C-alpha cells in the first residue's frame, strides 16, 4: 500500500512536504495505524510521532488519518485506508513541532482556563465528600475524556479562534465540573463562560462527536452548559 506522510523538520526543511512510502503489510493483516507507523519508522528512523500506551488510554498518538482525526493505536487500517492509500497528517490547527508531533500548548491553556479541579468552599468532612449513585451517574460520558485533542483540533471554531474559544474538549471538561454535585463554584464557572467566544462560538456542527475515539459527545455537554447559563440568567 501507499502511505503519504506529512514531514517537517524545522532544523533542516524550509517547508513541510508529503513523503510517499510504498509498504507491504506483513501477512496482509489488518494492523493498527500505529503499527504501520512503526513499520515506516523501521524504514526511515527520522520519522517523528508521539505514542505511549498503544491502547487508546493515554491519548498521545492523535493524528489526522485520511482526513479524519483519531488515535493511531486504536484505528485499524481497514477503518481508514481508501484505494490502498493512507494520508497521515498531524492534528490540524496546532503548530507542528516535527512531522506528526504538534505543540499542544494552546489546547492545554484552554483546558487550564476552565479550572479542571473540584472547587468546594464548605468545610471538608472527616472522610470524603460522598455522592449518591445518581449524582455519580451525571459524570458518565464526561470523565472519560483523555485529552487527546482529536475533537478540539477537528473544530473550525477552534481553528479560527484558538485563543478565545475553549473548544469541545475543554467545554466537555467544564461541564464535568459543573455537573459534579461536590462542586460549589457553579455560578463563578458559568460567569467565566458567558462571553461571545468561550462557549457560544460553538455552532453545533458536531465534528467533535464524529471523531472522539472514546465515543463522547462534547456537543451535548456544550448544550447543557448553554441551558445552565439560560436558567441562571432568566
Amino acid at each position: 500500500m501507499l502511505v503519504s506522510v506529512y514531514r517537517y523538520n524545522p532544523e533542516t526543511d524550509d517547508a513541510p512536504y508529503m513523503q510517499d512510502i510504498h509498504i507491504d503489510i506483513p501477512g496482509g493483516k489488518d494492523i493498527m495505524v500505529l503499527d504501520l507507523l512503526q513499520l515506516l519508522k523501521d524504514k526511515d528512523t527520522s520519522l517523528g510521532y508521539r505514542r505511549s500506551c498503544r491502547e487508546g488510554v493515554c491519548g498521545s498518538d492523535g493524528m489526522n488519518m485520511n482526513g479524519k482525526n483519531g488515535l493511531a493505536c486504536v484505528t485499524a487500517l481497514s477503518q481508514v485506508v481508501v484505494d490502498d492509500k493512507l494520508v497521515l497528517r498531524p492534528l490540524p490547527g496546532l503548530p507542528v513541532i516535527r512531522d506528526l508531533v504538534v505543540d499542544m500548548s494552546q489546547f492545554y491553556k484552554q483546558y487550564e482556563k476552565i479550572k479542571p479541579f473540584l472547587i468546594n468552599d464548605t468545610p471538608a468532612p472527616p472522610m470524603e465528600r460522598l455522592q449518591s449513585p445518581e449524582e455519580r451517574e451525571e459524570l458518565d460520558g464526561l470523565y472519560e475524556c483523555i485529552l487527546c485533542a482529536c475533537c478540539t483540533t477537528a473544530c473550525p471554531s477552534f481553528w479560527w479562534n484558538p485563543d478565545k474559544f475553549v473548544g469541545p474538549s475543554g467545554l466537555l471538561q467544564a461541564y464535568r465540573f459543573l455537573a459534579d454535585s461536590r462542586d460549589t463554584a457553579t455560578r463563578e464557572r458559568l460567569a467565566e463562560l458567558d462571553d461571545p467566544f468561550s462557549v457560544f462560538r460553538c455552532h453545533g456542527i458536531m465534528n467533535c462527536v464524529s471523531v472522539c475515539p472514546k465515543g463522547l459527545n462534547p456537543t451535548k455537554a456544550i448544550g447543557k452548559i448553554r441551558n445552565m447559563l439560560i436558567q441562571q440568567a432568566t
Partner: protein
Amino acid sequence: MVTSITSFGRSGLYDWMVQRVTAVVLLAYTIFMIGYLLFNSDMDYMQWKSLFECTSMRIFSLLALLSMAAHAWIGLWSVSTDYIKPTGIRFVVQSGCGLLTFIYVVWGIQILWGV
C-alpha cells in the same frame, strides 16, 4: 472570560438569545408574506398599499426590520471575528456593516411610513 467591546450585547448568552428570537420573528414574517401572496394571487396595487397602511402590519414589518438588523449584525460580527484577523481591517469592516445596517433601518422606516 474573553472580553469583547464590539459584539451586540457583550454577553454571549444575550447575543445567542437575540439571534434565536429574531430568527423566529423573521420566520413568522416570511411565512406570513408567502401565505398572503399565495392566497391573494390576483392582488392589485391598492390592496398591497392598504396592507402596509394597516398599523398592525407596520408594527409587524418594523419588528421584522429591527430583527433583521440585529440578526445580521450578530451574524456578520461572528463571521468577521472568525475570518478577519488584523484588528484594524476587522474594525473597519464591522463599522461598515454597522453603518449599512443603520442606513437600511432608517430607509426601511421611511419606506414603511411613506406608503
